[in-house]
């Protein structure tokens, strides 16, 4: 168990180091997210619809797009110079590989979300401060769900044709339960209501996370082996 986690961290650190040295991917993702938020501003009639009514949807559609963008590159970069083969023949378990990629993806998406959330607050004037801690908890819960399935699928699509298109087609149906839960919980929080009102949705989010983390860890070896 200790070895599994240590190896997983090695993989995650490798990915994050690569990201940190080039910074292109994470910067592009941040700029893309800022652009999506901007586009949303023009996708509504400001005189007819109050921002606060749309805010939860804007936040979560933006986050799902950001997650897909981040996940698309997770295994894509391992295709260069046959790096994936190298990872597969190295003496680490498939579980470590999955967990490492999962952590790296979570960090990547997390960074994008950390930039997007203040921008969202700024652009749409959302009263987020009184519910910041529970909101971050909801974001974390839903993001784990997104990334757990997404990491599994991104390992799968790299060897298919039209990989960049295949990932969203496969992944978006899987985003529906966490997205629904996250939007409902966010709406309650932004409305100034207590988190306990969204307890059912939080249970759904947590159940989804556990189910797909376990399932993806079990299924992952079947997606990478030659």
């Amino acid at each position, binding site marked *: 168990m200790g070895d599994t986690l240590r190896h997983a961290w090695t993989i995650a650190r490798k990915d994050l180091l690569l990201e940190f040295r080039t910074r292109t991917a994470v910067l592009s993702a941040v700029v893309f997210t800022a652009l999506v938020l901007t586009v949303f501003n023009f996708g509504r009639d400001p005189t007819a619809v109050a921002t606060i009514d749309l805010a939860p949807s804007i936040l979560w559609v933006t986050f799902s797009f950001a997650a897909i963008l981040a996940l698309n590159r997770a295994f894509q970069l391992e295709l260069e110079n046959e790096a994936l083969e190298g990872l597969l023949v190295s003496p680490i378990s498939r579980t470590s590989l999955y967990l490492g990629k999962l952590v790296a993806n979570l960090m990547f998406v997390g960074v994008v979300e950390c930039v997007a959330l203040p921008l969202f607050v700024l652009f749409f004037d959302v009263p987020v401060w009184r519910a910041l801690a529970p909101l971050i908890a909801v974001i974390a819960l839903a993001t784990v769900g997104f990334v757990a399935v997404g990491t599994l699928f991104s390992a*799968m*699509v790299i060897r298919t044709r039209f990989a960049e298109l295949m990932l969203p087609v496969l992944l978006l149906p899987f985003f*529906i339960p966490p997205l629904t839960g996250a939007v*409902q919980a966010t709406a309650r929080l932004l409305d100034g209501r207590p988190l306990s009102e969204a307890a059912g949705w939080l249970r*759904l989010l947590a159940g989804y996370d556990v189910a797909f983390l376990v*399932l993806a860890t079990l299924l992952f070896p*079947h997606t990478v082996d030659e």
Partner: protein
Amino acid sequence: MRLARAGRWVTLVGLLLLAGVYLRALAFTPIERSQGPAQKIFYLHMPAAVWAELAMGLVGLAGVFYLFLKDPRLDRFAAASAEAGTVFAAIVLTTGPIWGKPIWGTWWTWDARLTLTLLLFFLYMGYLLLRSATPDPELRARYSAVLGICGLVLVPFIHLSTVMFRTLHPAPIVLKPSPPSLPGSMLITLLFSFGVFTLLYIGFVMQVYGLSLLQEELAARERAAAVARGRGEGGDDA
């Protein structure tokens, strides 16, 4: 070859019996009091809906067994079941709005079970697209198994989230904890139709399974021919 042909016969019998379902539903089953003739579509809608979901379950189960046994027959069955399931989901998504317009006053609403069927349809489409985008047969089988299993786990979550979201759909009247509240003659028509749809599912699966066998055979023959040709040309060059 034989399987695809047998599947065609089973489907043909199923389609003839489907005409029988129409006949029984229209002429020999009483008209529902509050919904009027629109309710007749229920005899197609519900069996198709049940099979659309069952087919996904079978795709997922075949996936689980495939990952353990690596038997290509399981993969062929899963692919055939997914294709049949797509057809049934499409039937549900077509008959639903036809009924919804006169009864609910709208073609579409984001009701729990409508959303579930729509996402099931997307799941099937994704499954079939993934298959067509993965050229290597062994890899394709493994990928489809993984996606099928994930789909099987996803369906209850979608069900839960959409029910929590909102529901307008008529409550179940047959598949529910208490005994069915459908009058006898309607229940018989429904069960008859369910039997016909089961037959159609079997017929569809047999045909697709038989066709994929033929395709594999053709591919193998082409490969063999190419090898033979290559050998012949190589001989000439030498």
